[in-house]
């Protein structure tokens, strides 16, 4: 009975990591599409998103079945709840990767007003945060989860810088309004991804301690 439960829980755990890997790749690809103005990759991100969503539903159903049939309590229940919540956050992150890919698609043929610096930097920070959050989840490391949430400050700072820059460029010449808007969208998506990663870190903390705590204040 117990062995079966552990097996099913482990399966959900692996699926969640698979989902995180896919979402991570989606962020990578959407950023690559944006930086290299590569329409094919942008389309791939949009095309693959339903598969990520399907994975989330699969995980969700698995979690609910497990709760219904096995009546887990304590640490087991918290684990399942965490998987449930994290898969939800990952799904949202996937949606934001799609938004970035769509923005990239809209300015594919335009020459960029200047080479992208802060956006790829922000993307790299967010991407690293996600990867580290998966590490922390696997290790069940609450200290690391808290440390990752701190990195969100860097994301917020870059977000502000990009917004200021984009507004300046758009007001200087209205030819750049379309491009500037897209970069604002992208920055907004990246900022939201940072928030979702912070959420994931909070769930890791909950999984280990049973305490719900806000990391981003």
């Amino acid at each position: 009975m117990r062995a079966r439960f552990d097996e099913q829980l482990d399966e959900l755990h692996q699926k969640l990591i698979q989902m995180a890997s896919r979402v991570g790749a989606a962020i990578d690809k959407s950023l690559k599409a944006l930086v290299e103005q590569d329409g094919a990759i942008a389309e791939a991100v949009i095309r693959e998103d339903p598969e990520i969503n399907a994975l989330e539903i699969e995980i969700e159903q698995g979690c609910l079945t497990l709760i219904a049939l096995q009546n887990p309590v304590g640490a087991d229940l918290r684990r399942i709840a965490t998987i449930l919540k994290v898969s939800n956050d990952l799904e949202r992150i996937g949606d934001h990767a799609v938004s970035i890919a769509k923005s990239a698609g809209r300015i594919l043929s335009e020459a960029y007003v200047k080479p992208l610096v802060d956006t790829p930097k922000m993307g790299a920070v967010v991407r690293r945060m996600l990867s580290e959050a998966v590490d922390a989840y696997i290790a069940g490391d609450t200290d690391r989860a808290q440390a990752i949430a701190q990195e969100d400050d860097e994301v917020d700072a870059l977000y502000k810088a990009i917004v200021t820059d984009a507004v300046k460029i758009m007001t200087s010449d209205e030819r750049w309004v379309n491009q500037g808007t897209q970069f604002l969208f992208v920055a907004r998506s990246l900022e939201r991804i940072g928030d979702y990663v912070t959420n994931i870190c909070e769930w890791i903390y909950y999984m280990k301690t049973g305490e719900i705590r806000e990391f981003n204040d």
Partner: protein
Amino acid sequence: MKSLRLRLTVGVLGIVAVSFVAFFLYEAVLTARTVEQEARRHLFRESALIADALTALYAGAASASGADAVRAMLVRFARSTGERYVVLSGDGRILADVVSSADPELRRVDPAPAPDGVITVTAAEEGSRYAQVSRSVRFADGSAGTVVVIAALSRRTDLITGAWGLGGLFGGLAVLGLLSLLIFHVAKELTRPLVRVAEVARQISRQHYGVTVDVQGYGELAELTEAINAMSASLAQQVKRIRDNEKRLSDILTNMTSGVVLLDPRGRVLFANRAALALFSLGGRAITGRHHVEAFRLFELSQLVELVRESKAAARRELIVYFPEERVLDVHLVPLFDDAPRLDAILLVAHDITDIRRLERIRSEFVANASHELKTPVTSIQGFAETLLDGALDEAEEARRFVEIIYHESERLKRLIQDILDLSRIEGRRLPLDYRDVHIQSLFEDILLQVEKERSRKSMVLTAEVDPRLHIESDYDRLKQILLNLVVNAVQYTPEGGRIALRAEDEGEDVVFVVQDNGIGIPKRDLDRIFERFYRVDKARSRNSGGTGLGLSIVRHLVELLGGEIRVESTEGVGSTFYVRLPKARDEAL
């Protein structure tokens, strides 16, 4: 552990003790029987003697006093022999009964007359035994009587202990004790090689190979130790061979550039070599024992692994890894089977083909660019030739202008083709180099002369500055091609009245050539790419200037061919400076 030695001792000792006791008993019984037979024979003879003496006494004496003489004699006899004498008349009356006082027990025995000379033995309580024998006696009156001689026989136990005595028993025990010591010692000597062999076998099983037993013992034992020694040596050799092989294999695995990962049938990582950790950027992660999903976190890779696990067939895929850096990996997965055959492991081999893919892209881009560049003058030539054919030939002035354009374009086409050929020759290292001593000041004068026409047209200041003693060993024509290319570029991208400086600086082993202008400069984002083929900072402008887009690319390749390096500093609107560092003397290794 010492069971064999103990058993051997106890066993041999047991056998010895049993035979010892058996011998003891046999001896005792034999002795007892001899003693008894001797006693019977003695009784037989003695009784005959006594009967004769009694007959003689009765015959020679009166009947009253005769009886006293007989009694006296019998008492004397009894005293010395310890026997009992009973004289019976013919009708069974007891005439005399004499017993030695030393053995009153004899009186308890019933004298039972028997035929003459027959010895009967009666046993009494407490193991005592008596023998009696009857002999006929003749009295003075001529009537017949009987004398019964009763004698005590030794007890059997007395006989047995008598045969050996307590001393014999203790002596026997002492001998047995000594024997046991001896046997124990011999057993120990016999089993010593066995103990040593066992110890060696134990050491071998604890992976201490190459230990040997000193050859001890004889015959089979010596054979055994020799066999064990041979086995130990052969094992040591085999294990060494296996270890050497193992080390060689692990060295190969560790140092090969292909990433190698071994997964167990459940998809957990058993082993990953160094290259694999680098290729998949797994440096900080402990992945051994982890499921591939957790270890690699690459969806497509995990999907492929699951595919191979299910299909049990090899698979190959090109994967693009984006995080933490972009890589193109060629991944092969091979299922490995045990004898069953059941899936035993999955072997993953990965190659980094990032550079190959990039080179392929550059090459195909080059072909596309070259075709495009070649097409432009050809289109132009074709267009003007068509116009001429359509009637422009008749108008001399127009025709001349068109032909001039055609000539100009064909010149450009020729330059372009020449550049492409040059570039491919340089890249293929098929360009023979003619090293000789170059006087740099003369080289500079040569270059200034070549651009003089263009310089004066744009009224620029072109200075050459070099120590007249400075020489370099290089290919004159190639070096001139490099510097001329840079100077011509400088002239082209510097507005009228600008200033260009050509310098050579002595830096010990190297000479650094500097071409500096105060022209339009190069935008920062383009700086990294200006040495690429067909790369143009401002596409429209440079094509109009008649450049092929290959100049700087050729320069960079030539500099590398001459064993040097090139670098550029530039600020938009301020000017550019190119530095070419070349070794003063030819590197023999090149």
